[in-house]
Structure formats: C-alpha cells, structure tokens
C-alpha cells in the first residue's frame, strides 16, 4: 500500500527494526465510572431519550470520561450537552487517524468544558476515510469554526454546514492532509536565490 506522495513502509523512524504496533481501541467501561462521570451520564440519559442509540460506548481512562457518539446523532447530543448539561464551552475539535481501524479510520475528538459545574468530558466520533463527513458544530459553539477548519486541513474531515470550510494552516492549494498517518514527514523543495534546498525527507531517512 502506498500512501500520499508515494510514501511506503511502516512509518517507523526510530531505527529499531521497523517495529509496527497495532493500535488497540479500548472497550466500554463499566459502572460506577467514579467522580462526577456517573452523574453526567445519568443526566444525559434522562435529558436525551435516544441515548442508547446515540452513544456507542462510554470509556473512563486516567480519570477522564469519553463518550463515543454516532455521527448521525452528534448535533442533537451537542445541543443537549450545551443547553441541559451546561457544557458552555467547546475547547475545539481535533482529529486522530487510525488507518488500521477499517471503516472508522478517522476519529474526531471534542473536548467540552462546563464552567457552571467545573467539569470536562470528551466526545469521540469515528468515521470512515471514504465518507469523511461530520455535522459542523459552529451553530452550537461558534468557536468551533477555526478548529474545524484546522481538522479539515490536517485530516480531510468535511464538516457539513460549516460557514466557510477552507484550509487554515496549510496554503490554499496544498494537496493532501498532513496529519494523516499515510502522509510522510517531509516537505517541499525550497528555492532561494536560484539554489534549491531539498526537503528534509530527502536529506535524512524519514521514510
């Protein structure tokens, strides 16, 4: 399999025999979750009748609560979390790419903060590379605007309903999404005063 820009290999650059590790996705946690997590999940279950259908699993790890949400229900869950559970602030969306998880390669991760209750939770939504669409949450938290643009730029996740989904960090005409795992660490040749500096990927072995 060759990735973007013809990259091949494991992506391992440590020089230790090309060790490849499989990423493991954790299973659902069991009650009691501890701390305020039980209360948050109970409140959400009460406020949202479709809870069982929308929340794929609840994971508690290292003292943090993650709700895995189905894409179709994300907008509804977000509105209930904001209005009923008072998670007023979104700390932005961010992507993670798991090429091994076929059919759900792209994960979008959202961190929410309730200033009223001084609580934090995380939402995680898994989608496939072939259909990388997510509903935009700019209507719910206006601050998601730039964060969604960055996630689009870096992972190619398309946020439907975003007011202006364009690249934000990379140049507008850039090809590929740099934070995906099949995108090599490298660069483009830089020309300065007639001389060309080759990209790092061709100067040192990063491939």
């Amino acid at each position, binding site marked *: 399999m060759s990735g973007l820009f013809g990259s091949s290999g494991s992506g391992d650059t*440590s020089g230790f025999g090309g060790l490849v590790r499989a990423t493991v996705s954790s299973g659902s946690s069991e009650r009691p979750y501890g701390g305020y997590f039980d209360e948050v999940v109970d409140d959400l279950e009460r406020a949202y009748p479709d809870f069982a259908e929308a929340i794929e699993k609840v994971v508690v790890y290292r003292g943090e609560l993650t709700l895995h949400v189905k894409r179709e229900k994300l907008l509804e869950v977000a509105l209930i979390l904001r209005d009923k559970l008072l998670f007023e602030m979104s700390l932005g969306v961010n992507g993670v790419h798991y090429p091994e998880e076929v059919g759900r390669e792209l994960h979008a991760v959202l961190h929410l903060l309730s200033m009223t209750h001084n609580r934090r939770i995380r939402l995680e939504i898994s989608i496939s590379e072939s259909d990388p669409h997510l509903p935009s949450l700019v209507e719910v938290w206006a601050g998601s605007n730039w964060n969604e643009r960055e996630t689009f730029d870096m992972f190619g996740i398309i946020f439907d309903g975003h007011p202006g989904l364009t690249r934000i960090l990379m140049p507008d005409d850039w090809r590929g999404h740099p934070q995906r795992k099949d995108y090599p660490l490298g660069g483009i040749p830089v020309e300065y005063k007639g001389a060309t500096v080759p990209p790092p990927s061709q100067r040192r072995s990063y491939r």
Partner: protein
Amino acid sequence: MTTSADAIIDPYAASRETTEGRVFSVTGGDWDSLVTEIGATKEERVVVNMGPQHPSTHGVLRLVLELEGETVTELRAGVGYLHTGIEKNAEFRSWTQGVTFVTRMDYLAPIFNEAAYCLGVEKLLGITDDVSERASVIRVLMMEFNRISSHMVALGTGALELGALSPMIFCFREREKVLDVFEMISGLRMNMAYIRPGGVAQDLPPNALSKIRETVKVLRRDFKDNEKLLIGNTIWMKRTEGVGYLDLAGCTTLGVTGPVLRATGMPWDLRKLQPYSGYENYSFDVVTADTCDVYGRFLIRMGELEQSLRIIEQCVDRLEKLEGQPVMVADKKIAWPSQLALGGDGLGNSLDHIREIMGTSMEALIHHFKLVTEGFRVPAGQVYEAVESPRGEVGVHLVSDGGTRPYRLHFREPSFNNLQSTSAMCEGSLIADVVAAVASIDPVMGGVDR
C-alpha cells in the same frame, strides 16, 4: 491633475485594474499620491489587507479589513504563515524529545507548553503522584516567572502598538531580569526544554534562591514605573476604554479564555479551579475586571504580575525546606539518565556521569543508550491536560499507542481560539481600535500556527 497617460509612476504606491476593482499596492514612504488616487474614486468601500508583515499585527497575522471611511465593517483574520508542523514532527520523536518541540509553539510562554505536555505524559504513564514535591515547586516557580515575562511583552508591545514608546523600554528591562533567572536555572533564556516527563531537567544551581529573592525585590520596585506611566493615563485610557468589547456570552461561545475572559468579571482560572502541580497550596488572588474592554485586560495583566511575585515568594520559601529532594521520578525506566550540568558554554552532560558510564558500568551505558535513543514506552490511551497560560487555557491532547513516541499530539492553543474573536471585537469599530483589540488578545503566532 494627471491623466492615466502621463501619470507619474510612484514606486511606493502603484495601482492596477482587476476584475474586483482597482488594486493599490503600497509599500511605505509618502502616501500622498495614494490618497489623491483613492479620493478620486467614488467607491466608499475599501478593502485593506493589513499584514502579514505589519509592525502592529503582533507577528505574522494577516487582517483583511473592509472599511467604510475609517469604520471597519468586516474583519477576517488570516493565519498559517508560521505553521511549522510541530505536531506532525513530534510523532516522529520520542516522548522526551517532544518537550523540545512543544516549547517552541508559544515562544513567549515556553514553560507552560512544557508543563502541559509533561503533565499529560505523566498522566498517561500514571506517575502524576510520583513527581517529587521539589520538582512541582520548581515547575510552579518557572511558570510564574514565565507569566511575568510573557505579560511584560504583552504590555510592552501592546503599548508600543498604540504609540506609547516608554512602557516598552521598561517592560523589556523587567523581562530581561526574568530571562536572567531562566538562564541561571536552565541555561537558556527561551525555549528551555527544562520541564521533562517525570520532573525537571536538573536541580537549581547553588545560590539560586537568594538571587531569585533579589530579583523579586527589584521587579516589585520596577513594576511601579509602568503603573505610573499607564494606569490612569488619559491618552492610554482614551485608546483602550470601551474598545474591543467582548462579553461573557461571547467569550464562552467563542472558547475565549485567559485575561480576555477574566475581563468580563468571570474569575475563571484553572490554577484555582482545576489545580495542577500543587497550585491549591499557594495563596494568591484571581484578578478580574468587569469592563469587557482592552483597559480591563490591561489592568488584569498588571494585577497578575503582583500575584505571580506572591507565588514565587512562597515557592522560594518551600524550596528552602525541600533542599536535597530529587527533582526527577525514582523510576529508572522513565527518568532521563543524563546528569546535566551547567557549564560556561551552557547546559551539557556532567563529566562525572560520562566518566561513570564510559569507564565503570557497562549496564549504565546500555541503559543510557536505550533510554536516550529509543525512549520509554507509554501505555496506550488518550488524555487531555490543561494549564492556565498567560493567554488562557493551553490544553494538550495526547494519544499513545503504547510505543516510544506520541501517536498524536495536539495543542489546544489559547492564542488560536482567542484570535477568532477579533471579528466580534472589531467589526463596527474604527480601524485604529483594531490594533488595540488585537494587542489586548496578545496572540503569539508561533502558538496559533504551530
């Protein structure tokens, strides 16, 4: 009057026709010919591209302003000019090497990036409680000194951009003293990579505490110069009062934190509300204002200087009692094996350590080599860790797949989120107020673009 046929070509103000209308390129010098030309057009609406190279946009920030006369009707901020791919690069380095990368994001508050990152790594490793008290106190000390040096740049350049030159000179004088402390402790003035997973790179040098005490005394005295210059200054207040208004609802929906949020009267400070590194054991106040404007944010930064000095004094008292405690976790599979020492040419390996691993113990050499080249393994999972930086909540989202390098590293940068609010703050105001509003957000483009 000149016609197009015999127009004088002004090298500083050339113009050309495009499908979108007439485009003027101005590069400096005398703008008289530009003013004459624009005055001749009937169009009231002018789109001005301010930056990315502009002395008052706080770095490589580009502002696209739509103006009617001097009023801004629409503002769009363009970022990305300083994107260096730090997050991607860190995926190809060990967990310890990550510190040297993240410290270069928000280059005015490097210690906060390091602290957030290391607290995140420690949370993933499950060793949060194993970090020694001395290491935590040193971290707090460094963070509070860094808060002062960062606020000094915010105040100094902010004033400079509004035309007040003297505060900048005073602010940089004070900042220099803080950087001297950094140099004494870590060997470097910026981008120190001093906080490491498991503790800090090395212990304080001898006599550090007495020097810190002296610096605190001098800083407290010298901060008064700035207060005298700016607080209550008529011109300063006319430029800042009621400018760049953003209320609490605006801040929460836009994800704005830090002094901008506290200027709405909301005492939101993670040091108090979600303490880390033992902040719950220090006595200090959260400074707020209720004006929602540039002046309020300025007063908050001024007030936080004194609070930081209070915390530093408590740190020094504690460090005296914790003399001799280790500054790195005891677990030899995580603790960085090098024993660093400050030499005349900066930070380096201590000769005693090199003598030991090269001359006496082959196991120590193997251990050193494995840990330094390959690094330690971190259990699979993800965490989010946030600390209160001078600009607001800097959060780090770390994903590990169980290997020796981060699977994904993402920084929730306060500058990035706060900068989105420029449109909300500035649309409808005068163009001169845009400069004041951006300065009050205090964005650092290294953090915005990463």
